[in-house]
């Protein structure tokens, strides 16, 4: 029996729920055969995959080492914990949940600080006046360093923070912070504001592959089947099926619809009797229905799609191309 592909998924909270429902929508039911407290699982009726339930940080660490093949984790953690992320992992797809911004925040009272250039100046002035550097509390030391270096800010010190970072300025342990925020409400409640150009990273949950994992056994084929399911669901989710039939439907009209509404004709142009199936982005469905009736359609039906399997699979192709490409050279 060939070695399984190990897929690491978050072991608790909203990330776990979202991940499970993402896979469930693709017909992949994550199950724990030995009970809900187990940290290993499988996918019902899908061979060759072992599920590892881990914390998001642990998933990231295991991806870096290649101890798991695929993992669901936040881009913020990957970029923070893996020094050269694009060398060690492949970002296969953004999953549309777990949104969070990593941002620079300062006390609201700093009315003279609006952007990074102001912060740069304040940091230098602070060092000259106080003979010490401003302190910045964060869990994201690496992201912060790279971002501040890009903005030429040098007069600051990082204070590692393991929790409740937003409380550091009020507690007097730091002057400013870098932290994740979704709405900014927690920051505001602590008297902090995000700097105008201070968003370091707009992060969300990603499906990530480890380059260092063993991909020599059956794992590539398993990954292809897995990504085929995910891609089919993703494509189905991006379109509604629109069907109609009328004599006036021809290639010229189809072309116009493609340009106006971004529709696809998965089964080719209209038949001789004008029968046509279209895939249309949800936001254009109603305009398309009007357009078709204006041109003579008696009826237009719109239906949700469960899966759209196509010959090509962009997720899998991108993944394979990335995996086989030599890792990007380190800065020489």
């Amino acid at each position: 029996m060939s070695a399984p592909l190990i897929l690491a998924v978050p072991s608790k909270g909203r990330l776990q729920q979202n991940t499970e429902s993402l896979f469930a929508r693709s017909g992949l039911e994550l199950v724990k055969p030995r009970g809900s407290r187990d940290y290993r699982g499988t996918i019902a009726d899908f061979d060759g995959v072992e599920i590892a339930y881990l914390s998001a940080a642990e998933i990231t660490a295991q991806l870096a080492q290649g101890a798991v093949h695929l993992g669901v984790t936040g881009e913020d953690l990957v970029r923070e914990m893996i020094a050269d992320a694009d060398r060690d992992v492949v970002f296969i797809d953004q999953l549309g949940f777990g949104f969070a911004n990593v941002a620079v925040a300062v006390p609201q009272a700093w009315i003279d600080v609006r952007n990074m250039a102001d912060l740069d100046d304040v940091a230098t002035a602070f060092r000259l006046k106080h003979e010490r550097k401003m302190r910045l509390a964060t869990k994201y030391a690496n992201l912060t360093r790279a971002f501040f270096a890009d903005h030429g800010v040098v007069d600051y010190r990082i204070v590692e923070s393991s929790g409740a970072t937003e409380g550091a300025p009020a507690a007097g342990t730091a002057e400013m912070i870098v932290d994740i925020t979704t709405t900014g409400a927690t920051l505001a409640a602590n008297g902090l504001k995000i700097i105008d150009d201070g968003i370091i990273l707009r992060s969300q949950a990603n499906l990530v592959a480890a380059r260092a994992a063993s991909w020599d056994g059956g794992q590539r084929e398993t990954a292809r089947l897995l990504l085929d399911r995910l891609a089919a669901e993703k494509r189905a989710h991006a379109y509604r099926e629109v069907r109609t039939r009328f004599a006036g439907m021809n290639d010229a009209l189809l072309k116009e619809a493609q340009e106006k509404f971004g529709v696809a004709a998965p089964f080719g142009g209209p038949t001789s009797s004008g029968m046509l199936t279209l895939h249309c982005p949800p936001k254009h469905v109603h305009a398309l229905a009007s357009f078709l009736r204006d041109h003579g359609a008696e009826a237009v039906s719109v239906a949700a799609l469960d899966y759209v399997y196509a010959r090509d699979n962009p997720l899998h192709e991108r993944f394979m191309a990335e995996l086989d490409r030599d890792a990007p050279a380190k800065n020489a």
Partner: protein
Amino acid sequence: MSIMPTNGPDLGAQQLVSSYMRAGYTLIDPPVLQPAEPFLDLSGEDIRRRMFLTTDPHGHELCLRPDLTIPVSRAYLQSPSAGKAAGFCYLGAVFRHRENGAAEFMQAGIESFGRNDKAAADAEMLALGLEATTLYGIGAPEVRVGDVGLFTAFVAALELPPAWKRRLVKDFNRKWSLAHDLDQLTLSAAGSPPEYQGVLAALERSDPKAAHHLVADLLSIAGIAAVGGRSVDEIAERFLEQASLDAGARLPSETRALIERFLAVRGDPDEAAGELRNLVADTKLSLNGALDLFEVRTGFLAARGVDVRAIRFSTAFGRGFDYYTGFVFELHDSKTKGPLIAGGRYDALLTRLGAREPIPAVGFAASIEELAACGAAGGAA
């Protein structure tokens, strides 16, 4: 990495240190394990990822010394000669992650403290550096020289708001930032208007003291005393400083051209001094003794037998470290990428390390690895 020390480079290094000692420098061997704080504080957060850090049982952050300047400076401050003129030399390993090469490598250098004859001390460092290359049988290394003090004096003399002066001096060591600053300065009026532009414009024309009180009072009313280590006064002061910055304070193109003219000065020290004298005469800017010091230093270099005409000086040359305050230099050989020897003046460092009075300091470090690679058979007798 070899376990046994190889004969070639180590023998050369021993001879090098002996030559330092003959020149009057006391051999010193500071601990390899150092508190991390001074390095992070003085070299910036960027050095952290290149350092070897550890934590003692009390939670204090320690590191393997990434250079010897700070350890030697600390040892000097803890010694009885602190504050007095004293010179030290060293030979030892330093530890830094590098893209190419082992993370542990040998440096031999000199640190000279407390000498008030700065020009002579500067010249002595470059002369000793050149002697070191001779000792390794390296013919005529390329000598790159700069003077951070000239730029600082030049910026101080310009008519610019204090915030912009701070920025230009800070960004001197980051060349793209400096170019970016100049663009920003020239374009600032075209940028987006500040949030409080109306208020700032109104305040700009009012009595500075009254305006300061007004802003401080407003912050106090909001219940803000001191937030994030900055006092209400500091915030008010800089807020008002922005008034002068934003209320149409655009860098006149003549000033920009002047800065660019200054930074374009290069050549041998005598040529450069001539150009700088012309610049001073054309603009009536005073460089406040920095240019005199520069010329006196050139004199001392010539007196020490250094071929002054072979020196490649540039006003824009800096070593990328914020702690240099004056003379900086590097000796290069075409065979290696990094400098064989590098150093400079760092008069502000010792107060940052806790000295009560400013103590002049200058020094350099020689890379044994690079010297041995370029030298004829690892050092001549």
